[in-house]
Every structure is written in structure tokens, then in C-alpha cells.
């Protein structure tokens, strides 16, 4: 029963609180065979305390949790850098076809030709988009694509007998870049962003040398700006014998317009769950294929999907490979979705990026008079505003604006990233939003700016219309409760 009659959000007890001894849903098959004796040392002594619930309650539980979750299907989700576009339902049908869903990854190649063909065709299409010839589909996400790319650099230079230990990264970089650098065993060198939001070429020249293995760059950058000096940047690194890595998180801005390979990048990762519409599933799954130049191809992970005559097979023996970065050939279900997505657009994929950039610039044009724009340029598929002024004048922060947007029915943008912009609001509408949605979002953003002036408290106290209000995050981190503890579970909530 709703503890507060009339409050539209029903209570959502934990599954374990819905549990009752002896209650159950599933009943697995029990063949008429003798039970097997196990030595006590191997036999489980105490049963795991899994929930004991009936199927009806299980369905209601997940339905209730879904109702407390906001997705692209629910509404506008301009989360910068995450490319939250529409995810076609067709893809769920296709990924669920028995021929794919029930196909064992160790199935013989001759009995998996359809799957192999799909992966091979996807590789070809991705290669064309990146302007680089060789693709591996194996990496599980963008971050793993980064790590794979760095391992490829290591293998490439080792093969040439070169000792290079440094990776250059701009101050606007996403956190995964430096983290990947460390995991790959490289040193980090930071480079500044100039006044127009491009890489600072002076700073760059000073930092690139014979120890430099390469650059990791997102272009357009996390500021949503295309680096106008990209050709010179590439020259600097290539002249130093170093490589350029392209973080594909922002590829949605330039598909069919400018290809990383043509920009001078040697290694590229794609985020299939951003540009190519794999639904993000509340955190994952994703896909992070990597494309490279001929010179780097020999080092790609195995197995590789190769064509032989009219057939396709998994090639496991590549002498120079870095090895394997995940199980099997990659997240196949993700490939089905991205393959379908690219086949739907065909050569018109360019229109996708054009619409994404048009939508972003339209929002920018209609918002920059009320929110500060640190880099006053046309943007690409996303842009970064600053709430610095609002904060100074009315004590309303980027966080406050984000929370208040919830009350207007929108998911907030990315905030406080990139770090170079104070009180950053990073807004990415994507190509699938209709103009009306953008207009009401503009209305909301402008209304909030007014509220910040006229009634800042309503903004500070936001959100008002969600299942919970703002959380005590410090408490969560100081004395972490990261699992249910049954009878020992701390009672956080007086109310209950």
C-alpha cells in the first residue's frame, strides 16, 4: 500500500523484502535419476539467500522498477557525450531471432555462415566510415577499444624495436582516456586547449618527442568543437614517428562528412551504443570495435572474421596479434543491431550526422543568450554551456539546473564535464529528436533561468516530481551499504 495515499510513486520494496520462505516461481526439470554424491568439502553448506518470490510478484517488481527509470523511450535525454538517440525496436526483434540468439559461439564456422557474414559486412561498413582498412569487432565498449588501441601501439612499436612510453592527452579528454593509458602501462602527458577550443599547437609541439607513442583525441572534442588544426596536429605526431588514436565517442557528428582516417588518425574506436544505436540498457551492453591502418593490422586481436571465396571464417592464428581482449568474437547481439541500423540508412548515414549537428546548433542558438557559452562558435553534435553566471548571481549551479529540468520532464544533460568548463552543462540532442521537443526543452531551460532569478528555492529544492528528492551521496560513500544484509541490514530510513 502506498505509504502516502495519492502519491503516484508506489513503494518499491527490495526483492528480498518481498521474499517469503518456501515461495517460488521457477521449477526446473528433475529427471528421474539418482542424486549424485559430492564430498562435503565441495557441497554447498548454506543455501544462498536468493529471493523467494512468485512469478506474479516478480513481474510486478520489475515493472515497478522500470516505472522509476527514465529512458529515451520516456522522453528527451540530452546527455552530452552519450548520444542518446532513438533505438529502433526492430533491432530487438532481429537480435532475438533464434538463428542468432540460440547460436553457440563455438558452433563450427560452416554452420554459422550467416553470423560471420553479418560481422564481416559490418566490418566493411565501419571501415568505410572510419576511412581505415582493417577492423576488429571484439572490444566490448569504448573504453576497451581505447585499451586495445594502446596495446596495438605497444605491439606496433615493439615490433619496430622502438621504445616509446608516453601518450599525449588533452585537458578536455574523457576520464577513460587517462585510465586506459595507465592500464596499458603508459605515461601520461597533458596538453592544453586553446581559446577557440582547439588543441594548443605550441603546447603540443613542446610535448611531442621520440618518447611519444601517440595522441588520444576526441574529435569533435568533448566541447563539441571540431579541431580546426587537426591536420597540423597529425603532422606533428607523424613527424615524430608517433601514432594518433581517435576516441570515437563523438563520431555521430561527422559520419559521411569527415573520416578519422582522412584526418590522419591511425587507430579509431567506435561506440556502437552511441553512434550506431545499440540501446545502452541502463549501463550497458556496448560495443567498441577498432579500426586501424594497414601497418597496424597484423597486431589486431584474434579471432578475426575473414572472407574466403563466398564463405567466411574465424581466423585464429595471426603471429603478431596482441591476443584476445574478450571472449569469442565480440558482443554479437550488438553487431546485429548496429548492422541493421547502418543498412537502414545506407549512404544516407550522412543525413544522420547533419541532423544531429543541426539539432545541436539550433538549441545552442536559442540558449546562448541566457546561458554562458565559453567557446562562442558554431558547435557540432553537442555543445557545452556554463552556469557560472547563474551561480555567481543567484547561487544556482549546473547541478540545480539539471535537477530542475527533471521537473519539466527531461533527463538532464551531462554536467561538470569537460573539466575545463566551470559549471558545465553538456547538451547533446541527437538526430532523432523532432523540433517540437527541442522547443519545449528551450522553453524549460529559459524558464529555469527565470526561476533562478525569481524563485531560486524552487530550483534548489528540485526535483519535486520524482520518486525521490536529492540524495545524501556523502553518506553513501562514507559508510557504504552495497548489498542487502538481511537481518543485519542497517535501517537507514526512520519512516520504515
Amino acid at each position, binding site marked *: 500500500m502506498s505509504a502516502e495515499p495519492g502519491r503516484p510513486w508506489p513503494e518499491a520494496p527490495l526483492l528480498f523484502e518481498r521474499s517469503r520462505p518456501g515461495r517460488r516461481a521457477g521449477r526446473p526439470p528433475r529427471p528421474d535419476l539418482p542424486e549424485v554424491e559430492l564430498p562435503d568439502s565441495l557441497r554447498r553448506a548454506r543455501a544462498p539467500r536468493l529471493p523467494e518470490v512468485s512469478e506474479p510478484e516478480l513481474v510486478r517488481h520489475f515493472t515497478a522498477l522500470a*516505472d522509476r527509470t527514465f529512458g529515451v523511450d520516456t522522453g528527451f535525454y540530452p546527455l552530452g557525450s552519450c548520444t542518446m538517440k532513438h533505438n529502433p525496436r526492430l533491432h530487438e526483434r532481429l537480435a532475438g531471432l533464434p538463428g542468432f540468439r540460440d547460436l553457440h559461439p563455438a558452433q563450427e564456422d560452416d554452420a554459422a555462415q550467416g553470423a560471420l557474414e553479418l560481422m564481416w559486412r559490418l566490418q566493411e561498413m565501419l571501415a568505410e566510415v572510419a576511412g581505415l582498412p582493417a577492423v576488429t569487432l571484439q572490444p566490448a565498449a569504448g573504453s*576497451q577499444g581505447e585499451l586495445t588501441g594502446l596495446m596495438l601501439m605497444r605491439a606496433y612499436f615493439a615490433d619496430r624495436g622502438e621504445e616509446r612510453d608516453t601518450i599525449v592527452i588533452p585537458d578536455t579528454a574523457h576520464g577513460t582516456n587517462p585510465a586506459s593509458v595507465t592500464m596499458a602501462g603508459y605515461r601520461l602527458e597533458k596538453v592544453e586547449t586553446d581559446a577557440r577550443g582547439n588543441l594548443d599547437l605550441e603546447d603540443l609541439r613542446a610535448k611531442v618527442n621520440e618518447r611519444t607513442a601517440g595522441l588520444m583525441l576526441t574529435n569533435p572534442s568533448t566541447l563539441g568543437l571540431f579541431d580546426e588544426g587537426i591536420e597540423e596536429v597529425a603532422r606533428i605526431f607523424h613527424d615524430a614517428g608517433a601514432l594518433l588514436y581517435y576516441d570515437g565517442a563523438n563520431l555521430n557528428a561527422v559520419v559521411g562528412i569527415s573520416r578519422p582516417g582522412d584526418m590522419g588518425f591511425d587507430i579509431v574506436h567506435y561506440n556502437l551504443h552511441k553512434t550506431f544505436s545499440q540501446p545502452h540498457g*541502463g549501463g550497458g551492453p556496448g560495443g567498441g570495435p577498432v579500426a586501424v591502418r594497414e601497418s597496424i593490422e597484423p597486431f589486431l586481436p584474434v579471432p578475426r572474421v575473414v572472407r574466403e571465396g563466398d564463405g567466411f571464417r574465424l581466423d585464429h592464428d595471426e603471429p603478431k596479434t596482441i591476443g584476445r581482449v574478450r571472449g569469442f568474437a565480440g558482443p554479437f547481439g550488438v553487431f546485429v543491431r548496429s548492422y541493421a541500423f547502418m543498412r537502414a540508412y545506407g549512404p544516407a548515414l550522412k543525413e544522420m550526422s547533419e541532423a544531429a549537428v543541426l539539432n545541436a546548433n539550433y538549441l545552442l542558438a536559442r540558449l546562448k543568450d541566457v546561458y554562458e557559452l565559453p567557446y562562442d562558435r558554431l558547435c557540432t553534435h553537442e555543445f557545452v554551456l556554463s552556469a557560472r553566471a547563474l551561480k555567481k548571481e543567484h547561487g544556482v549551479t549546473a547541478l540545480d539546473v539539471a535537477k530542475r529540468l527533471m521537473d519539466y520532464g527531461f533527463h538532464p544533460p551531462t554536467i561538470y564535464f569537460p573539466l575545463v568548463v566551470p559549471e558545465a552543462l553538456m547538451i547533446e540532442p541527437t538526430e532523432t529528436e523532432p523540433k517540437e521537443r527541442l522547443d519545449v526543452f528551450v522553453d524549460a531551460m529559459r524558464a529555469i533561468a527565470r526561476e533562478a532569478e525569481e524563485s531560486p528555492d524552487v530550483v534548489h529544492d528540485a526535483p519535486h516530481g520524482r520518486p525521490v528528492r536529492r540524495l545524501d551521496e556523502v553518506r553513501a560513500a562514507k559508510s557504504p551499504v552495497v548489498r542487502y544484509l538481511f537481518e543485519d541490514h542497517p535501517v*537507514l530510513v526512520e519512516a520504515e
Partner: protein
Amino acid sequence: MSYLSLTDRDREEMLAAIGVSSVAELFEQVPEGVRLGRELDLPPALGEAELARHVEELAEKNVHSGRELSFLGAGMYDHYVPSVVDVVLSRGEFLTAYTPYQPEMSQGVLQAIFEYQTVICELTGMDVSNASGYDGCTVAADACFVARHVSDRRKVVLAETLGPQVRQVVKTYAPGFGLEVVEVPHDNGVTDLARIADAAKDAAAVLFQQPNFLGCLEPAPELAEAASEAGALAIAHVDPMSLGVLEAPGEYGCSLAIGEGQAAGNWPSYGGPHYGFLAAKGDFIRRMPGRIVGETVDLDGRRAYVLTLQTREQHIRREKATSNITTNQTLLALAGLATLSWLGPDGLREVGETCLSLAAYARERVPLEPAFDQLSFKEVAFRTPIPAREVVRRARERGVHPGYVLGRDYEGMDDVLLVAVTEKKTVEDVDRLADVLGEVCS
């Protein structure tokens, strides 16, 4: 077909508002020299009906488990995926949400992850679980990264009976971590205690798998003890579907437990996407890689959930992060939560008993020599009188895929066939396998 929403009229109004005359102008920031002067060379666009038909035709070219009676396992298993999973996967709110950075918008998925973490901890006997890793291979590398930081030793030991792909991934990652990898061979299908004890001496961690890749039950408690005594972390790679009948790693001295989640709630799907799980004892909580959801309260004192301990993570710690992972496998992990909750403790135990019984029955009934004289959970390795590849070829002509050829990964095992059963298989299925193997091997 496109999924765009802008009409020509919209475009005009928007360009006017921006103050440019064409979309091309928006791209002038892209230097001439790097623009693609031509159309993308991609196959023609397809409407939904045509696209569906094309992809269905590709799917038809595959021989899936509905088209032959398959005993393939070797890390991916066809346990039953209950229909409650469809509720999780088909709800657009779960499907199309991003990582829950804004907790007020995502209480549902946050609570579900918290429940998932609890279920994983219960299965493994641990105190903390992350919100999922990419798969059963990468979580092994993650675990090594943890070991690397809590110890100044620069070596990890892998039992050779640990999945080949798991070992390969660890070997790919290890150089970056500055770790050396040592493998310990098996003896009659299980890991040799003495050699593990020896190898563990100067090792940061020892990784083994239970049940192991060869289908045998390892003396897991002894292995863990040997590792701990040598001052190395004991890390067990476990099958979630076995943990209703097999002891939890946390109960026999393991510091971390990892595994491939596919068997619990995901379809094989030609290898992914699935989820890997990683759980640990409480002392490792601030070294855990990946997302973790914690419980707290909101301003009104209502219980609420939030991503926590983010100082571990790359967007704050950057190069000092415990991992670079951001996107993980949440949706698949939630399918696992739904499946394990649907089974409950009794159901999970029953699945385990059924696997044990069917494996034992197969061992008896199949007219081939078991390759190893050990206990099985759900897989049995048999020696074949002719090359196992040939056995597979012939059996498949009879509509049965008899299993996995261990020679794919292990020297000198070209005549060893690894047969997997799950609770979905019946006694009659095993009889059919036995009869077909009898035919094709004689």
C-alpha cells in the same frame, strides 16, 4: 529508411534561428582537407520490411540449438532463460536508459543493480560485487589489476584448467599491468596442488576455475588454501548455475570470485553480449573496478540508491582509477537477476542437482572412455577412437552436435570431446547422444 524527425519546414526554421543558410555552413569548421568529398560507399538503404527479411535470411543460414540437438558448452551454456527475463529486456525504460548518473531519474535501475549485487554476493559468499564487467574473461584481468595493487608481487598464476579464453585475455592485459603470467598444468583433469603451492610463492594471485574447463571439479578449497598460505590472493572463476550445489568461494578462503554470467539468464547469442561478475571480500571495496550502487536516503529520509565510491572511477581519479570501464553489461546482469530470482534457492539447487545427475548419466551411458577420472558438474570429457573433429562432423550429419573438441585449446587433446548437459536436456536426449556417438565411433 531513417529515424529522423525533422521536416523540410523544420530545417528551414532552424537554420534561420541559427543564422546560417545551409547545413553545409555548420560544417565549415571542418578543414577542407579532411572533408569526405563523396558519398559514403555503403550498400543501399533498406526499408524496415526489406531489412527484416534480409537479416532473417542471414539468421536462417546459422545452425542454432533449435536445429540440432547440441551438447556444446565449454563456457557458454543453454540453461533455460525464463520468460520473466523478457519483462526486463522489453521495458523501454531499462532498455534505453544510460548509466544512472542522475539517481532521481533512475531509481529503478539503481535498485535493480543493488539487488543484482546482493544476489552475486550471496552466490559467491562475498561482501561486495560490482555492477558487472564485460564478460567472464575481462573480469579475470580486472581481478589481476586488483591483485597488482594490493600486493607488490609482480606475478599471477593461472591454472591451465582455467578457460583458455580467460587465460588469453589475462595474458593480453598483463604486460600493461607489469605482471608476469605463469600457468600451472593439470594432472588427470585437475590442478596439481603441489605445483600451485610452489608457483604461488612469489605470486600476487592464483586464479583457478570451478568446475574447471575440462569439466572436472577441482579441489577448490585446497587450491585456495595453498594460494593463501603462499601469501597470494585466491581467486575463483565460478559458474553461477553451479552455486546452488557447489560451495561458495567466499567460504573456502577466496578473496575474490569472478565468473561468466551468461549461463544465468543470457542466451548464447554467438558469444555476447553477456555479463561478467566480480565480487570480493569487504577489504577490497575501495579497490573494486567498475560501477557500484550503494544505499542511502534522500532529503525526506526516503531510502534511495546511487552510484557510489566514484572516487575509484576514471571520471574522478582519471589515471589513478581502479579501472577504465564505464559502459558495462547492466541489462544482461539484470536478466541474470531476474533469472536467479525466478529460480530462488530451491530452483538453483534443483538445476544443480539435475546437471550433476545428467552428467553422471552421460558418463555411464555414452559408449566412450571418460578422459579424466574426476567428478563432473555438467560437463564430461570423453576420449574418441577417431579424431574428435571427425566425430563432430559425423554426428552433426545425424542432427546431433556432440560437443566441444578440447584439441582446439589443449595440446594432445585432439581425441577428447567435451560434452555439456544442462537442465534443459532430458534422459532421452542423452540416450540419443550416446546412440549417435556409438554409431559414428565404430
